[in-house]
């Protein structure tokens, strides 16, 4: 199994600072992004705490440090899914504590979306309105449900889903990291197949770029990085009103045979196993 990774974040055309953060840990196939809120530099601080905390907690778990679980593991989920949920609970507490200690940062918060891929298993956890999509056999399916007022009202039948996608109530989050001492975390597990593409993104993409354009970009781009670059460019073309972050993961199964390794070697696209990179790196 191999994951071709594309990552890109952009401030957009209207905002002056980028409150999004992301972190990719290729050695674990762990991917985290976060959209901060709270104005000034505080949104940035919140999203940075979110992605760093989630990555650090999972790295510790993967290296047998056995950090405590910050949420009760659920027996129907895999260890990695439970670990991710725990990491998100821990990130919530850290942001909440940070805001409590710095009165100027009060009210800061962040969304979080984290994916951990282990062979054909995809673990996914999220809080807020950052979204995960799966492209399979040419069809794009949303894997996460937004925790926004617009989405909640659509679920309750008050808005149609088309209305919800353009509603100003999308800006009102029902759940976010850091705003309360405890947070409810959504977790899910999915089976991955050869040829799947997984997209993780902040609302700066989904509110700017129509779904069919997202799907066609994922289908036509030759590499995950090309797709990530193209999606960010599309968000800008459509107005770029918000920060945008996209992580694109192309899944290739059955590549662990000698032949698969040889093919990859010829393509020359492997990364050093311990490297991590994030928004600030060149």
């Amino acid at each position, binding site marked *: 199994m191999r994951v071709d990774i594309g990552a890109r974040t952009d401030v957009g055309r209207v905002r002056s600072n980028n409150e999004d953060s992301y972190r990719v840990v290729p050695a674990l196939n762990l991917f985290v992004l976060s959209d901060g809120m709270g104005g000034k530099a505080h949104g940035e601080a919140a999203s940075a705490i979110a992605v760093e905390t989630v990555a650090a907690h999972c790295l510790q778990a993967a290296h047998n440090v056995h950090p405590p679980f910050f949420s009760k593991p659920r027996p129907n989920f895999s260890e990695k899914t439970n670990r991710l949920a725990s990491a998100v609970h821990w990130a919530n507490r850290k942001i909440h504590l940070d805001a409590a200690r710095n009165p100027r940062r009060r009210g800061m918060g962040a969304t979080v979306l984290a994916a951990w891929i282990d062979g054909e298993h995809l673990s996914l956890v999220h809080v807020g309105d950052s979204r995960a999509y799966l492209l399979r056999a040419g069809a794009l399916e*949303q894997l996460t449900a937004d925790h926004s007022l617009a989405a909640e009202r659509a679920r309750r039948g008050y808005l149609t889903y088309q209305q919800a996608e353009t509603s100003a109530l999308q800006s009102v989050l029902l759940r976010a990291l850091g705003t309360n001492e405890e947070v409810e975390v959504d977790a899910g597990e999915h089976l991955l197949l050869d040829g799947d593409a997984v997209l993780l993104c902040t609302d700066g993409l989904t509110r700017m770029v129509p779904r069919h354009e997202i799907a066609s970009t994922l289908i036509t781009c030759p590499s995950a990085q090309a797709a990530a670059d193209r999606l960010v460019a599309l968000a800008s073309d459509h107005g770029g009103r918000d920060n945008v972050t996209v992580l694109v993961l192309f899944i290739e199964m059955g590549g662990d045979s000698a032949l698969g390794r040889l093919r990859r070697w010829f393509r020359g696209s492997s990364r050093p196993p311990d490297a991590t990179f994030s928004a600030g790196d060149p």
Partner: protein
Amino acid sequence: MARLILKFDAAVLQEVPIGARPVSIGRAPDNDIPVDNLAVSNYHARVYAEAGQLMVEDLNSLNGTFLNNKRVERAAIRSGDAILIGKHQILVDEEHDAALPLDAGRKVAAPIVNETVMLQTKQRRELLQQAAAAGESSQFAPARGRVASLIVLRGKTDQKDYPLSSRLTVIGKSEMATVRLRGWFAPQVAAQISKREDGYYLGLTNRVPRVNGKRISGPTRLNDGDLIEAGGVELMFLYRD
């Protein structure tokens, strides 16, 4: 042109330009600014221009119209004033033209993206209760969020029926599949069903399943009672109450 900005807390819900016609505010949906809150009367207030002066007028509302926290029947308003109706605030902005950077002249197809705000528990409960109250009377409400099931009619599987509660249900031999096929020649993945906001869809994988005997060509919306054939099993899609 001047405009009115409807806000709930920090969230901007709507912006309405003030033209020659009066701008009506109220709970009824045909108002220019519909405010979905039980504390707001059906036709609560209106804003209009009179001899170049903007005015706000209360239309005998039950709970009153407040201008900068004072109850008013009829009053002159200007830029920077805040009108309070129920718990919603309406801001008056007369210098609207100056505040159109970057996108001036460009058609804005996407919605206005505002600063994201987080609702605290009490407001959240209130807004959701209103939404629920309104949702119950809506014709869409009963069809939403219903969980469907798959009933196995023919073929070897690990159970006889499956509730479709997750967003993506995979049918196949894989140990991660929800509907696990048992036969020797069963494919790892035969089909998938995604739960979208407006219903359930049967999708392709690298296999092509059939619905009511026909091969599907892409994600196909499932209706109550549809017959699905995939990976050598036959399943019925049913909504259960």
